[in-house]
């Protein structure tokens, strides 16, 4: 897994060195090229996870950007119009993430989506307490975060 990622990086550096220009677009193209070369040359049938993980990571990044943008626009609209539309609440969210890294990444994701703020982690590390700005119902919020969590855990595990 790590070895494949390093090989991919090495291939993209070779591409950059061969073309002789230090641009993002060259680096990205080299990375993609290296990814496909590794994919074609992969003989180990049992270890194909790297090739599903990289597209999923990129997909999650864009999903995160989309969520951030939509929620930001909603909050901004609420700020510049005279009336308040929020229904805030503090909700307990039972996590499926177990290790420290997973909890950390999940809470970063929750904290950076506007409208939500992680207030506390329970001591047995089973649930987190989230302050939500637009709370329709408890189930709605939990299912929304659960969707993001499942996506995140698919990448990490």
């Amino acid at each position, binding site marked *: 897994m790590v070895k494949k990622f390093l090989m991919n990086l090495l291939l993209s550096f070779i591409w950059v060195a061969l073309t002789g220009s230090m641009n993002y677009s060259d680096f990205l193209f080299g990375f993609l090229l290296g990814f496909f070369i590794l994919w074609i040359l992969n003989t180990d049938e049992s270890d194909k996870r790297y090739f599903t993980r990289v597209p999923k990571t990129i997909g999650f990044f864009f999903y995160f950007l989309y969520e951030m943008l939509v929620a930001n626009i909603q909050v901004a609209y609420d*700020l510049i119009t005279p009336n308040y539309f929020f229904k805030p609440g503090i909700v307990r969210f039972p996590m499926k993430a177990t290790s420290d890294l997973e909890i950390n990444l999940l809470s970063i994701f929750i904290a950076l989506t506007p409208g939500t703020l992680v*207030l506390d982690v329970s001591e047995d590390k089973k649930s987190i307490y989230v302050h939500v700005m637009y709370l329709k119902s408890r189930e709605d919020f939990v299912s929304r975060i659960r969707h993001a969590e499942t996506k995140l855990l698919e990448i990490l595990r």
Partner: protein
Amino acid sequence: MMDIFIGLLSTIGALAILFASIGVVRMPDFYLRLSVTVKAATMGVGVFLICAAIVFPDSEVPVKALAIIFFLLLTAPVGAHMIGRMAFRSKISVWKDTWIDDLESRYTVDEQDEKPSAEE
């Protein structure tokens, strides 16, 4: 073409920071204020740094900008979490329209547990 793109991006960043500062004034309670400020400011600064990276592509600026964005994304949520947690522990009250509060019961239970030990 590139100029228009950079102009659009930096306008978005400036607006995000402007809304964050309006939010500091207009929000009814501490948690909502924190919630608005941290995210909008992080997004604004991040967008500005991306603009800087596009404007100066050939020097060391892009690498520095990416490093700053990375550490900003890593540290800002932790800071917000610590401030929010501290505020809740020191019993800063929530807004009157807050209609679900799961955390409330937890700390009142904690307090009852602590009282006997303090008397001993």
